[in-house]
């Protein structure tokens, strides 16, 4: 009974009086069970288990910490963990299970863009609330999703700016794994570089399959491309496993970071923890968080993590910080709204602010993205990063890139426009509305 009632509350604003009563009823019904259910939708088996298991543990740790402080609204939080097993259709099924059967108040989950795209219709249909903690290609804004990872303008664009201005890079290799995130990011970067006056002949775009390991020809291509008298850099959106053989090949062919630096968007502390870092020394990564950044909040977070996971050697990384921020924002919103009702929490979230781990703050924007600082780090021999550059202030996440022809005119604003893809030229909202 409860779910359809809440749904009607979310969708019809004409029956205001009636729905208030229903809302009260819902609140009472929830009070009957004395916990607030929190869904965790991360793969615990299959290829993505490497990365996603850590995020599951992070959410559990945050719930643990929150419960130690007395929970939220006087209730303890209870985690509902499901395993979508790196299987994209299964993500949708498990999301429906969390929302319809377990009736969770919020879900933290997904890593790959495919999995997010797969659960999106479910969250929109059931009026769920998803916090998505990974850097992604943008070009999306759903009413039911909050994106706490970086949009391209919070990672890729600043990294390219750094290479262009500080390292005087004139020639660009955009090297990526063949799937949606690298393809979209590279499209944005190509448009951006061309807008900055880089000739088409100075841009080389390459894609390789998932788990690619025979990098000889690709690397020698990069080497040849890089020996044309202009400073060359590689912007890498190579995903996961393929990175290690890539850097190994670079090392074997004696391409050092001083000659052709590689800036990666998917290589972090966690990925480096199982790797011989010698060939990677000095190459770059762009993130919104690094474990090596010293701040009281970060030391505290690392300490809590080590205690929780019972292993001092485990690293922290950027998506973990994004999970941390997302969780804290949700707690804040629930406290402020005084309810876990998703419609009210979603309406409360924009404008809220919470401290991030590196000393600044993350503010929820009307487009359901957040503000984030951008750091560039050089890989050290111990698998950590030395920060060589950072943005002066936090950068506001942009859902629709300003450099792609189709998305230039689109705007996401769930506060005033109440639309995720409002076309500023035609003044029309396409797709999901409030």
């Amino acid at each position: 009974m409860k779910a359809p009632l809440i749904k009607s509350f979310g969708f019809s604003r004409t029956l205001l009086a009636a729905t208030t009563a229903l809302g009260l009823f819902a609140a009472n019904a929830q009070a009957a069970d004395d916990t607030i259910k929190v869904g965790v939708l991360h793969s615990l088996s299959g290829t993505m288990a490497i990365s996603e298991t850590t995020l599951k543990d992070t959410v559990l740790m945050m719930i643990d910490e929150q419960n130690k402080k007395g929970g939220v609204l006087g209730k303890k939080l209870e985690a509902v963990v499901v395993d979508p097993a790196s299987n994209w259709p299964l993500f949708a099924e498990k999301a429906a299970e969390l929302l319809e059967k377990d009736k969770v108040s919020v879900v933290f989950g997904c890593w790959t863009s495919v999995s997010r795209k797969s659960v999106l219709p479910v969250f929109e249909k059931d009026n769920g609330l998803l916090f998505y903690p990974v850097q992604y290609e943008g070009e999306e804004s759903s009413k039911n999703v909050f994106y706490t990872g970086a949009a391209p303008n919070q990672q890729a664009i600043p990294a390219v700016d750094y290479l262009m201005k500080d390292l005087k890079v004139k020639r660009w290799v955009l090297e990526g794994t063949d799937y949606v995130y690298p393809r979209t990011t590279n499209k944005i970067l190509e448009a951006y570089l061309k807008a900055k006056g880089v000739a088409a002949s100075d841009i080389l775009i390459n894609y390789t399959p998932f788990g690619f390991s025979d990098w000889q020809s690709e690397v020698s291509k990069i080497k040849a491309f890089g020996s044309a008298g202009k400073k060359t850099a590689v912007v890498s959106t190579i995903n996961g496993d393929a990175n290690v053989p890539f850097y190994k090949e670079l090392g074997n062919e004696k391409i050092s970071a001083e000659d052709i630096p590689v800036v990666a968007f998917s290589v972090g502390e966690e990925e480096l923890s199982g790797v011989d870092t010698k060939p990677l020394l000095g190459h770059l990564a762009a993130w919104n968080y690094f474990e090596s950044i010293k701040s009281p909040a970060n030391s505290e977070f690392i300490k809590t993590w080590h205690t929780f996971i019972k292993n001092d050697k485990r690293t922290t990384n950027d998506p973990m910080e994004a999970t941390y921020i997302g969780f804290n924002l949700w707690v804040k919103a629930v406290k402020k709204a005084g309810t876990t009702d998703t419609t009210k929490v979603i309406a409360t979230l924009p404008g809220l602010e919470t401290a991030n781990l590196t000393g600044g703050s993350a503010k929820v924007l009307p487009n359901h993205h957040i503000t984030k600082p951008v750091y560039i780090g050089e890989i050290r021999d111990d698998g950590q990063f030395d920060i060589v550059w950072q943005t002066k202030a936090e950068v506001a996440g942009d859902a629709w890139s300003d450099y792609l022809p189709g998305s230039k005119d689109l705007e996401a604003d769930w506060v005033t426009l109440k639309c995720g893809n409002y076309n500023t030229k035609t003044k029309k909202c396409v797709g999901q509305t409030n």
Partner: protein
Amino acid sequence: MSKPLTSQPRRTRGWTVLFAGAAAALALLLGGLPAHADDAASATETEAVSAPAAADLAGILAAFAAADFSTKDQLISQLATLHDPRARPILQALLDGHLETRSSDGKVFIVEEYGDALKLTDPLTSTAAGDGKPDDFERIRSNNALRKTLKVAIAQLELADTDPAVRIAAVKQMRRDIDDSTVASLRAAFGSEQNPKVKHEIAVALALADLAATDVDARLAAVNALDGEAATDVYNALMPLLGDADGKGIETDPKVRAAVIAAVHHINLWRGFYQVLDTLFFGLSLGSVLVLSSIGLAITFGVMGVINMAHGELMMLGAYTAYVVQQLMPNHIGLSIAVAIPAAFLVSGLAGVAIERSIVRFLYGRPLETLLATFGLSLILQQLVRSIFSPLNRSVTTPEWMSGLWQINDLFSLTYNRLYIVIFTLLVFGALLLVMNRTSLGLKVRAVAQNRSMAKAMGVRTERIDALTFGLGSGIAGIAGVALSQLTNVGPNLGQSYIIDSFMVVVFGGVGNLWGTLISGMSLGIINKLLEPYAGAVFAKILVLVFLILFIQRRPKGLFPQKGRAAEGH
């Protein structure tokens, strides 16, 4: 914001601010060392060394401990100008990450990892200073900019080395980044250099510097001197003279321009030639990986007819064996690979025998059930290593002799790991061929494969031979795993990424034919690498698969089909 951020170079700020800050920091640091404070401080300002070298060396070393990157940069320049023979090992240690400070007293040592301990060397006296625990020491870190400075500084010192090879390497290093100071030291070295080869390299470096001369004749002479050189840095220096999209740096003098065009044309000819050789080698090396990973399958699938979907996981077991062996002998990385090969053969071979005895033997003649059972098994094995070793990839360190490059000339080089794997594949193939054709086991294996009941009638214990054959194929998969651990990730998914390729090679080569496997693996590798530069890695793979489908339709039995009654009797 936070401490390390402000103490590191923020390139967004002006260089002047940064420089002033660094100088101030240096002065402060050295101020804490009363004995040499004045000398060192004056050294920063005038870049001249007036005090005794020893005092400065000690002072500079002590300052390293707490210096930030920009300060370190200046300290390195100072070290390099000391003309002190002890400076070079210190700089080299810093570049290699072997320069560490003792936390208790801030003293700097050159360290060498020795098992769990550190062997200390006092950089001032160049004598051993006992052992230490790694936890008591903090490494002096470097970053890209610093490593560049270090390399140039070391190269300047190495110009005076007695070994001509070291001098050549030094000149080549300096050529990468020519500025006034390197040109000055190169000119000085050119006069005193006796070795013709080194002299030639220096001449090239000076010609590169002269490319920027204002005098047309000097430029023309430089270009003519460079004609016939094929090194990358020469190409790098000549190309911009021909101009680019933004039209800067174009050589305007027609004579010089023509000379540049001729020189670049020569280099391009050589580059094209070596590119073909490169591609062939890439193809061979990819081919050897394919052969290595499929040759075990050529036995289990080809000879026995068992579709073993867990073949990839047997390779994974081999790779994990390499990892475990390396963990057991951390001080002998090179030797561990040699030990890992027989160990992996045993581990995977025994696992293979166990699989055959417990699962496969009940399913002979039922390929679909075998496929499903072994597929299930592959998932079990994957989850098993996930539980034991965690889902994270493990790193197997590549021994020194397997990493790096065999630079044959300026344009052609082979990476050692690929070269060794080509050789290794051929060795394994040869050994397997011997076993199959020259031993009693091989004879029995072939006999059972050709006619089981006849072999049985002749007194061959076919069940035992089945188990051994499966074990042999699996053991070779294990060996392949050791080789793969040097090329790619050791993780639970290692096997999955090779299983399809392995079946592809065996089917293409002709089921049941070892030579067919060798030739098909090598040709698929070469075809793939020939296509890759034009079609891209993704599309090249698709094209190869399409080619295979068409080929199998024309010749269902592969390149080298087995002939005779036995092969057709199935």
